[in-house]
């Protein structure tokens, strides 16, 4: 089945230790998104790629970076995780409708910062 895969599902890191989360998709969608979701809150968009075109949200901290080496993969790098970065990180994809269509979410990576 075509899907969005996130690895790892659970990630534990230490305060200040860099961490990378990965996302892959078999849907062949042009757009890939990274969201941060904290408990009982809506997903908060960090950035998205339309093909290789990178779009950063204005309030995304500089501590967060992303890479999309090809259509199928996208990575979220947190350079120096703080306690406030503990959250669920969701990857999503959509077709080339530039947002006016369905987003397909992965299962998420739960990040714990010690």
């Amino acid at each position, binding site marked *: 089945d075509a899907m*969005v895969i996130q690895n790892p599902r659970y990630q534990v890191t230490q305060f200040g230790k860099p961490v990378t989360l990965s996302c892959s998709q078999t849907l062949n969608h042009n757009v890939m*998104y990274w969201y941060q979701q904290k408990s009982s809150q*809506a997903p908060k968009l960090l950035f998205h790629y339309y093909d290789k075109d990178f779009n950063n949200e204005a309030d995304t901290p500089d501590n967060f970076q992303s890479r999309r080496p090809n259509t199928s993969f996208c990575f979220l790098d947190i350079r120096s995780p703080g306690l406030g970065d503990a959250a669920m990180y969701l990857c999503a994809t959509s077709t080339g409708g530039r*947002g006016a*269509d369905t987003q397909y*979410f*992965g299962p*998420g990576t739960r990040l714990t910062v010690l």
Partner: protein
Amino acid sequence: QQQVKQSPQSLIVQKGGISIINCAYENTAFDYFPWYQQFPGKGPALLIAIRPDVSEKKEGRFTISFNKSAKQFSLHIMDSQPGDSATYFCAASATNAGKSTFGDGTTLTVKP
């Protein structure tokens, strides 16, 4: 500035009852309105969506009602079941915007 306001924040309904969740938006450029369902520990998944050229869309027990003039849309879950207990997010997006705006979510609990 929150562009999509969702209410209520939480909702408790008896099995077999009707669950109603409301959303209001501000941006008249929005032209796609999906509802996502999220279970604990899972990513959101599309439940049903509507475009503003229709006032209602029904899929099984789930119905979206859309009022363009009032800039409001709502999700109705008929014959609510315990398995419907989840968090529901409304969203809105505009063509060429590249992204969606989500409501804050409604936690639905359906009691047996």
